[in-house]
């Protein structure tokens, strides 16, 4: 049983009830802001709010302390109704130092609450952040409700008897901030206390310090009546069921494990660490009891190579990376396409090109996924629309890879990977099995085995794994003779095989759901999206409707092949808007495929669209 935190009744301060609230924690990358944000989020999730999060951190592990590039932040929106994004402008900003304030205060909505750690506002830090005078002393923060807390001092005081010393003392100050936030927003304290006790079970002094700092922050709020009122967001009326709070990388890893169970194949993940995909490796490597084998290869190419070997061996084979790593894997992916072996290729996209913005989201690898291979090598390409949907998209990618004996590209991005949302847990028993048929008998005349004899429905070739008697065969990157699989340089055969491979992938369109339209069928404007813009587009459409205008939205989970009904859907609207975090990649595909004059709304700023940006554009178009 967790210690009860001694709290005065927060209701001694008047409470204002809100239906939604956007909070941002900002501090130095060593200040523990991601942790504080995640704890606040989990407490809110367990309380029953709907929520969505947006972490943002520098590419450097520890940029110089106190500087603008070193600022790390975590934004979360909580609400008493179903929300779709982490919010545009924060209602409350925690700034642990001047740099965090400088970088974030402009986003804070007018009248919003600002919580600052006054101890960090010394001359040196102010200078590093580019302040000529202390914003706490002049009038630059007029219009915000400012809560000033000497967090360093109060944290030191709070933890002095817990046994932590030296540099570790101030490491608890994020818990001070969290305690203050728990008071201000009526968050339940038990989940945080329980988490601390579990997490630091082996370091009781650290657990004690964090709890003491958390308590001190809470008490600071009560004792100083830091604001004239506190805020409350009631639980959301979500659909009935059991929920957990999950980010995209975790849901993706769990989805792969689920696919492995449903296909009854061992899971093999061959990869090389890269931001923001590494957490998929971290998560999978913890679950070896599911028969998961993770392989941290010497490089990206070995990551995909090992997956191809594992696919040949009869595993559910997966490789994962981000754009630069996928570029390195490109040749091997084409090999796998030629071999016609099942494999999932995960691309957690980030800002590019080259090293680009490794910790920021972007959707700029769509054309690369569709066309970024040598030769004629069309692949199925799927895109995850939100963190929790990563689970089922991973299962779907596995289903298509195995059924059609082909590599499948599964796109995620940094926003999905690190953002989190409540997930209505599925009944795992009702997830349909993935059918796997290994070849066990010769399929040719006189007991011969023909590795490129195809299934008449799917055009998939048989999967005959080494160790199966009588099916010894050779596959390879050289062009195959149809049916026999022998090396062939015959011109007609190359035409046939090229067409067959393309047809096999195109035919998947008959095995995927139609794209669904959400909103007003008689609208003039349809907003078409793919990937992580899902929530933002839906939220923008809601706002448009609230203002009395009509709009429809559709979101693509399958980018190749495109759903069969997409052309008809697009043609039934007067105007098509395609918002993308790139310079217009889906736009190009749609225009080329359907000869439709769609318009793009494009942003490559290393951050997601704001709901307001898409709303404005739609409003312009509906007029």
């Amino acid at each position, binding site marked *: 049983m967790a210690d009860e935190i001694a709290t005065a009744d927060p209701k001694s301060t008047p409470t204002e009830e809100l239906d939604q609230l956007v909070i941002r924690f900002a501090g130095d990358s060593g200040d523990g802001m991601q942790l504080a944000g995640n704890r606040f989020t989990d407490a809110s999730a367990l309380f029953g709010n709907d929520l969505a999060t947006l972490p943002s951190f520098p590419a450097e592990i520890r940029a110089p302390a106190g500087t603008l590039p070193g600022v790390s932040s975590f934004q979360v929106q909580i609400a008493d109704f179903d929300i779709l994004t982490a919010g545009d402008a924060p209602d409350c900003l925690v700034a642990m130092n001047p740099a965090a304030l400088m970088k974030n205060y402009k986003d804070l909505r007018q009248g919003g609450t600002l919580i600052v750690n006054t101890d960090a506002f010394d001359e040196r830090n102010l200078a590093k952040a580019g302040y000529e005078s202390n914003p706490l002393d002049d009038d630059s923060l007029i219009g915000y409700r400012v809560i000033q807390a000497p967090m360093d001092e109060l944290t030191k005081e709070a933890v002095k008897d817990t046994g932590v010393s030296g540099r570790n003392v101030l490491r608890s100050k994020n818990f001070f901030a969290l305690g203050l936030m728990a008071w201000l927003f009526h968050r339940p304290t038990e989940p945080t206390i329980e988490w601390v006790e579990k997490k630091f079970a082996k370091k009781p002094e650290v657990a004690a310090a964090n709890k003491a700092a958390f308590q001190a922050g809470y008490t600071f709020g009560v004792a100083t009546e830091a604001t004239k009122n506190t805020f409350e967001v009631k639980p959301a009326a979500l659909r009935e069921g059991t929920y957990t709070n999950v980010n995209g990388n975790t849901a993706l890893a769990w989805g792969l494990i689920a696919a492995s*169970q449903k296909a009854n194949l061992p899971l093999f993940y061959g990869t090389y660490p890269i931001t923001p995909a590494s957490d998929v490796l971290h998560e999978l490597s913890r679950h070896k009891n599911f028969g998961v084998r993770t392989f941290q290869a010497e490089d990206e190419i070995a990551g995909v190579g090992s997956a191809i070997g594992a696919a040949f061996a009869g595993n559910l084979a997966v490789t994962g990376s981000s754009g630069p790593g996928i570029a390195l894997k490109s040749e091997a992916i084409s090999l796998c396409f030629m071999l016609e072996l099942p494999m999932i290729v995960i691309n957690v996209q980030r800002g590019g090109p080259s090293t680009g913005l490794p910790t920021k989201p972007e959707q700029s690898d769509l054309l690369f996924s569709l066309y970024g291979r040598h030769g004629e090598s069309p692949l199925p390409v799927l895109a995850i629309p939100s963190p929790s949907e990563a689970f089922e998209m991973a299962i779907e990618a596995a289903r298509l890879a195995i059924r059609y004996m082909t590599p499948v590209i599964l796109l995620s991005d940094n926003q999905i990977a690190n953002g989190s949302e409540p997930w209505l847990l599925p009944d795992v028993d009702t997830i349909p099995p993935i059918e796997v048929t290994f070849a066990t008998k010769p399929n040719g005349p006189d007991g011969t085995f023909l590795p490129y004899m195809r299934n008449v429905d799917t055009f998939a070739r048989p999967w005959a794994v080494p160790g199966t008697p009588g099916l010894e065969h050779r596959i390879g990157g050289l062009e195959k003779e149809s049916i026999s699989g022998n090396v062939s340089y015959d011109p007609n055969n190359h035409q046939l095989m090229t067409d067959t491979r393309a047809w096999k992938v195109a035919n998947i369109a008959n095995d995927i759901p139609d794209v669904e339209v959400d909103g007003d069928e008689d609208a003039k404007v349809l907003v078409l999206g793919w990937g992580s813009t899902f929530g933002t587009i839906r939220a923008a459409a809601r706002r448009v409707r609230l203002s009395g205008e009509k709009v429809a939205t559709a979101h693509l989970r399958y980018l190749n092949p495109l759903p069969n009904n997409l052309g008809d859907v697009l043609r039934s609207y007067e105007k098509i808007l395609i918002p993308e975090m790139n310079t217009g990649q889906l736009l190009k595909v749609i225009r080329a495929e359907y000869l439709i004059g769609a318009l793009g709304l494009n942003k490559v700023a290393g951050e997601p669209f704001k709901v307001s940006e898409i709303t404005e554009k739609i409003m312009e178009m509906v007029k």
Partner: protein
Amino acid sequence: MTAPSYTRADFQTDQEVRWCPGCGDYTILASMQMFLAGLGRPREEFVFISGIGCAARFPYYVETYGMHSIHGRAPAIATGLATTRPDLSVWVITGDGDALSIGGNHLIHALRRNVNMKIVLFNNQIYGLTKGQYSPTSEVGKSTKSSPFGSIDYPFNPVSLALGADATFVARTLDMDRNHTQAMLQKAYEHEGTAFIEVYQNCNVFNDKAFIQLTGKEERVHNRIDLEHGKPVVFDEGAKAVVLRGGEAEIVDSSSVDPKAILVHDETRPDPSVAFALSRLSHGPYGPTPLGVFRNVKRDAYDIAVNAQVEAAKAKMGPGDLDKLIRSHGTWTVGPTSPNGSSNGQSNG
């Protein structure tokens, strides 16, 4: 079940072998097929993985499972295969360009990991399939299509490289010597973990007689140093011997030293320094050159360790429970009786 009885023909495919007439690859293929037939192990349990190059066509000609992959990546592909299927005998067929140039990284990492696979490197010191450019084992000064003024690239010594990567089994053999080749294949097969065999292979079109010092009737007597475990390292019909001086191997006249000073070869020596010293006796096959097993030591094989970890996790944590997994971060329930969605937070993390 009785062991299958095979002949060489059982390991030949119906595909026409397409190497240049006179290529050393034919001899190596024959040695391999004879060796496999002699093992009596079901042929479906063998997998040959290759990259790109003349040698890489090898899997097409062996009636087992096989994959002709992409340039340099065979060890990576074989790692995924061997790691997940310890029941198979996995072989990598590669060349000097494939293994040491484009695939150098995969080679050294496979060797250090000690995955259960056998790497056979056909070293002809030239690029054959691309028609005659110098390779990373070509000698300095070599005049080729891409080095008309002579190559200025300093070559690798593949055996030294493998030892430097801490390979647990390192050997060298010669295409022409079928018996020696088969003996090396046998020892590699018996080794647990990665085995590395460099095969000096003659490319009669682009680099003919590169190994004449070891194959020529006159020359080989003076230059072939056969390493035999537990025996003094002597050659040239006993006239020459190898001694260690200051950590370096040196060739001396046998008569000039105390017989006790002659190095006794011990392939199982845990430290690779002496094996490395032996590999430095010649930096290429241009004079006295050792053949045989340089190193053969025990170290846990990677695939066995990986699978032991999986089994240990199952034993400790129980078999995976998917429903438990997706609830492991704490859950809350929105009940039917709470129209406002009031919910009860219960952490079962």
